[in-house]
């Protein structure tokens, strides 16, 4: 009986969530659904980061750079190879997954704050790398879909027809992003509830006990980095498709920090709060601009809001600090 009620409540929540997803763009202006689509990009990146940081305890301040890999993969395929924009998404995910895997290898020697700093270095370096390889990336100018490959942009005419159903381009971008976000969320949920999620947590909780139970730390950590990279890459691809342009300014280290802020606000090591984390990251700058357009005041409101949320969510913030410290202390005491 209690079990049936539980399942009922659960189904109801899922149905309500899907209902909101379907009607939301019709409740706001067409232009506004583009903001919601942008929040969906953050959502996907945050879910991916949470698999890595929340569940395996590896901090990444480099997810903006992995998003850049996804975004530029999409842009290069559209502009140079004339692929249709949406079909580039899987490849963008795979490319960022591979780069995530590669970052995961040096990360094996690091944890805690050291890992955070190393990944941060990657985030700081990526814009100048993008400028350097200008043949592929368009340098400082970036790559513009509309100038170089307009026919590959879905919804160029302002309308998109799918399965005989016509919608505006903004609605299309919203539904595209959040459909992928929901699928990604469901997959992450299956992962964390299953055997792999348990293995991820074992690495976070106690590396020695995990190894002694037969967990391959190197394989597990790099797998988490790769998986997380796939999410970041898909998010980056969707960001590029929404903007119809990529350039180095989009992918500064600030993007990495925003994704981490979203994951922390949403709750590391749990999934349901991540929608709120994504909305927080997307709307806080707009709300603070609303308070005052003057940049000093705006930035102050923005920073203060983050602090207040951290104080109001002591478990989220506290859990974060614990996890920052734990891999570090484990590392210090287990080195041969």
């Amino acid at each position: 009986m209690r079990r049936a009620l539980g399942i009922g409540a659960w189904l109801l929540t899922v149905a309500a969530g899907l209902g909101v997803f379907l009607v939301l763009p019709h409740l706001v202006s067409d232009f506004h659904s583009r903001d919601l689509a942008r929040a969906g990009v953050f959502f996907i990146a945050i879910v991916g980061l949470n698999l890595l940081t929340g569940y395996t305890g590896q901090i990444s301040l480099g997810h903006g750079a992995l998003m850049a890999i996804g975004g530029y993969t999409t842009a290069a395929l559209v502009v140079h190879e004339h692929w249709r924009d949406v079909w580039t998404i899987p490849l963008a995910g795979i490319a960022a997954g591979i780069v995530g895997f590669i970052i995961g290898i040096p990360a094996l020697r690091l944890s805690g704050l050291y890992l955070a700093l190393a990944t941060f270095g990657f985030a700081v370096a990526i814009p100048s790398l993008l400028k350097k390889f200008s043949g592929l990336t368009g340098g400082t100018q970036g790559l513009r879909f509309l100038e170089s490959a307009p026919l590959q942009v879905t919804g160029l005419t302002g309308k998109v027809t799918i399965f005989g159903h016509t919608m505006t381009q903004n609605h299309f971008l919203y539904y595209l992003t959040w459909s992928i976000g929901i699928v990604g969320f469901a997959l992450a949920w299956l992962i964390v509830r299953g055997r792999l999620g348990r293995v991820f947590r074992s690495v976070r909780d106690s590396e020695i006990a995990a190894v002694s139970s037969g967990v391959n730390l190197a394989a597990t950590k790099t797998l988490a980095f790769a998986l997380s990279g796939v999410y970041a890459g898909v998010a980056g691809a969707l960001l590029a498709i929404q903007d119809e342009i990529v350039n180095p300014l989009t992918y500064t280290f600030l993007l990495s920090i925003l994704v981490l802020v979203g994951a922390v606000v949403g709750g590391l090591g749990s999934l349901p709060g991540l929608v709120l984390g994504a909305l927080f990251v997307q709307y806080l700058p707009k709300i603070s601009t609303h308070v005052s357009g003057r940049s000093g005041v705006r930035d102050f409101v923005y920073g203060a809001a983050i602090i207040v949320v951290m104080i109001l969510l002591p478990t989220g913030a506290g859990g974060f600090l614990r996890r920052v410290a734990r891999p570090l202390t484990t590392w210090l005491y287990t080195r041969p």
Partner: protein
Amino acid sequence: MALLSVEGVTRRFGGIVAVDDVSLDVGEGEIVGLIGPNGAGKTTVFNLITRLYRPESGEIAFAGESLLRTPPHGVVRRGIARTFQNVELFGSMTVLEHVLMGRHARRGRRARKILGYVGVAAHAHRLARELPYGLQKRVELARALASGPRLLLLDEPAGGLNHEEVEELGGLIRRLRDDFELTVLLVEHHMGLVMGAAERVHVLDFGRRIASGTPAEVQNDPAVIEAYLGTTNG
């Protein structure tokens, strides 16, 4: 032939020789004690066997094959499971999840059976780290047993337990050996439990093996008496 054989193994930490040219063996089906004062190198021997540490020299073989080419996470697959001196639990996991982790690489008996056997079945869905210390040690034991090991390494299983729990422990270890067809290597720094449960004992002092034999033999060995009297921990 011994199930586990450690031959001339040395391991240093900076200036300290934690384990100094130590040889010891454990036969199939035996319960062997490894004793010695605090800092004698007992835990280091465990960490060498389980490949958390690399020996500078010497050889460690299990079931006739070297362990030194097995990666740390492969040790449990070879049939060696352990507990830790200071319990190493998974902070976010329930008791049942610990046993499932024990079955991650190699499967022994069913999780429920093991929980019942070690006496924590009633707490299956509680977070392990919220249990009293004595039960936490049982959870660690359950996790180790869940991998169906041939060799079980217990690092100070009596540490932090009350008198009653220690009394029970000796019987439990013998029953485990019989019911699970185990070989047990048991580290203890207090003599009592080892002398009751073990059939053979190796004694370490300052990283060196100073005696081996039956409990009665080593108890009367002058070198052992000296080692234990020579420290405040005896």
